[in-house]
């Protein structure tokens, strides 16, 4: 919404991975408009606080609804939206700090309920917006303004965490592979349950991992990213686990529960057939 908005006063740094994620989001939403024949206003983007979350203001073209609240609370907000209005398509965009540090408590409950939303987590291994402090995914030993003597905290492995918590759709992506990322976001949106697309989205200003991820043949740097082979059976938990144990950064769908039943469906099933008591009848039940 911002390109033409002179009042809006934020912009990503040149080369920031979030640009690619934004393009993928735009394309995924367009794809969905075609697939579902629903207008773009049927999409709600719930954004975290961080460079990443600013995406909600930076989407160009057809404008979805947006929610840009406070740091770390995208999932509860998304739950309120989705469970009240199952007809909406709810997408979360958040950074590693927002989603995995201050907001970490909210992943487990939504995984256990299988909230039917799609999370696009932009992992740059750093707190970008607050200027480069360490995040849960910052690597061991890294020197940052808040770890001047090197980080002494084992980094979190988000994909393993998602697996353990029972997230029913888990994909891994890289911001520069926009087409693939688009596909994964669309898959996540189509999945009837809790979907996380975890994206390596480098912070070119504080933690530029582009070269490490892509590799640089000129410098003899091998790429970390590799495509998950088509044979991978994403419904097989142990195959998924094996991917996580492998070296490098596998890209694609890691795990998808083919029998996933969404939270809203369960909630509806349990109350189906129950005749609600009217307030009048409720009052009557307290009659003296």
């Amino acid at each position: 919404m911002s390109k033409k908005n002179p009042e809006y006063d934020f912009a990503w740094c040149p080369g920031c991975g979030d640009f690619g994620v934004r393009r993928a989001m735009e394309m995924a939403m367009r794809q969905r408009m075609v697939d579902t024949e629903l207008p773009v206003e049927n999409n709600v983007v719930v954004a975290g606080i961080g460079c990443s979350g600013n995406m909600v203001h930076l989407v160009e073209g057809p404008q979805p609804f947006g929610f840009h609240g406070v740091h770390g609370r995208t999932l509860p907000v998304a739950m309120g939206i989705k469970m009240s209005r199952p007809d909406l398509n709810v997408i979360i965009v958040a950074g590693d700090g927002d989603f995995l540090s201050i907001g970490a408590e909210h992943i487990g409950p939504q995984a256990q309920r299988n909230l039917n939303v799609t999370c696009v987590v932009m992992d740059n291994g750093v707190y970008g917006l607050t200027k480069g402090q360490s995040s849960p995914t910052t690597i061991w030993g890294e020197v940052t303004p808040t770890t001047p003597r090197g980080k002494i905290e084992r980094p979190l492995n988000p994909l393993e965490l998602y697996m353990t918590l029972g997230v029913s759709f888990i994909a891994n992506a890289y911001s520069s592979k926009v087409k693939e990322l688009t596909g994964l976001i669309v898959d996540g949106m189509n999945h009837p349950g809790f979907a996380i697309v975890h994206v390596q989205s480098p912070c070119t200003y504080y933690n530029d991992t582009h070269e490490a991820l892509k590799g640089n043949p000129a410098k003899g740097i091998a790429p970390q990213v590799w495509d998950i082979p088509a044979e991978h059976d994403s419904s097989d938990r142990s195959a998924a686990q094996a991917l996580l144990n492998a070296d490098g950064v596998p890209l694609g769908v890691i795990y998808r529960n083919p029998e996933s039943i969404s939270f809203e469906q369960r909630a509806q099933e349990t109350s189906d057939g129950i005749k609600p008591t009217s307030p009048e009848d409720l009052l009557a039940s307290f009659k003296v």
Partner: protein
Amino acid sequence: MQKQDFIVRFAGEGGQGVVTASEALAQAAAQVGYHVMTFATFPSQISGGPTWTQSRIRTTPVLSSGDELDVLVAFNEDAYESHQPDLRKGGIVLYDSAEFEVDEDGTNVIGIPFEELGKSTGNPRAGNMVVLGALANLVSWPEEYLSEFVKKRFSRGRAADEEIIRSNIEALGLGRQEMSKREFSLGELAAPIPPGGEQVLLKGNDALSIGALVGGLETFVGYPISPATTILVFMERYLVGPGKFVYQGSSELESINAVFGAGYAGKKAMTSTAGPGLSLMSEAIGMAWMSEIPGVIVNVQRGGPATGLPTKTEQSDLLSSLNPAHGDSRIPVIAPGTLEECFYAAIHAFNWAERYQGPVIILSEMMLSERTQNIPKPDLAKIVVESRNVFRGDNGYQRYESSEVSPMPIPGGPGAYVANASEHDGTGDTTHLPSRHVHMTERRFGKLKLLEDGTYEAEHVGESVALMPWGGSKGPAREAYEELIASGLNVGWYYTMYLNPLPPKLLEELRQKELVIIPELNYQGQFSSVLRSLGVKAESITQYTGLPFKVSHLIEKIGEKVRASAPEKVTV
């Protein structure tokens, strides 16, 4: 003169049927047309622990649970010891003489082996009915008051009904008989003057919950916490059906953010909590104020601060409700003072939230939530429920642009915008322009003007000194006021449950007073300090024991303050 008022306290251990006995007495009395109120305190432990409940029965509406007891029913020796001091002169102790022994001094202590007698009817649970029979005898109630109650209560269409009714009626008779042997009487309780309309007998949290349903509640997410949990449990049971959603959150942070997610998505949404939860919700309440999202937070106050006194009553969350979060905001607060007001507060809260498009706090309290009382059955046909002004125009709409509240776009419909808790422009994009911050701040505060429709009570408005309780202290204060007026004191009466914004005319009147006396259950005198900051010469009568005010205490303190403020008037 006949007795107009009958106050009985049942005290014992959790599990001894203390609550059941007291509720049964109240229910029986209400059925024949008395006004009743019960008040209970619970231990924090789950099974066992000292518990007591008090039932008050009157021929006119009950305003407080009563200072002094006509009868103390002691289920064990501990209860006997610790509650004696609350007995009025001439009051009577009834105790289970099979449980423990005391010196029956022949005047006012009566031992009856309730439990044993109850069991002798063949019904192991009939002990309570022995007690009720004895109590009925003490105030010369006709037999049928209780026997009709028993018949109604136990006619549940089951095979065992008949035998249960028989044994309970037998137990009533045994109690009556035991008592009549003692030839004690408290004097005849005047016959009820049945209230005009239909009555319902319920707890404050029930009244509030039903009110919320009437107000149009659609989504509820809450986390358990005393004394608010029963609202969550109520909603889990009754907030079902198409378009409704209720869930237990994993924490208060999740609950409140989910509520505003729902509010944003077009729903009437609510959570319930107590102080510790309110504190955790503060950031999100600020978010809703800033991004202008409707939602209702019920804060059932308990003793604070911090984990505090979960099972005690207090009115000490006012300051943090008005101003829960950092930055400039002033959250609308409605604090019901009676069970009836609990019901209407919930409806008004939704109306307010929808009308000004922001968060509203209902400030209830343990003393209301846990007590049972008869109130006139609300006439739902007369209730006005307001709905959101939904934007139905075209895309490109600037939700936040106007300096007044404007139609709110709902996801799925036209007018996509970003609900933004950073400062923003018309469409919700973040901006830090000074002119925007000024405009938006004024827009947010300006909307409070829409909520100046609160009603208030005003009596003896010509007096220069006025009494103005808030919340649950209304009952005891009103009882005190009526006595003081009857005794000739010159003092005005003001009351509203709309604490923010205050009805402007009320505030104007209060500003004219030489003194406004605020009885409130907190240390700091929170409401009087708010009123002083608004230019009212207010002073508090404070209490911070975890218990409600006693009427006698208020009579004394109000009298003192009125006399100190206008000595010449009083000596006339």
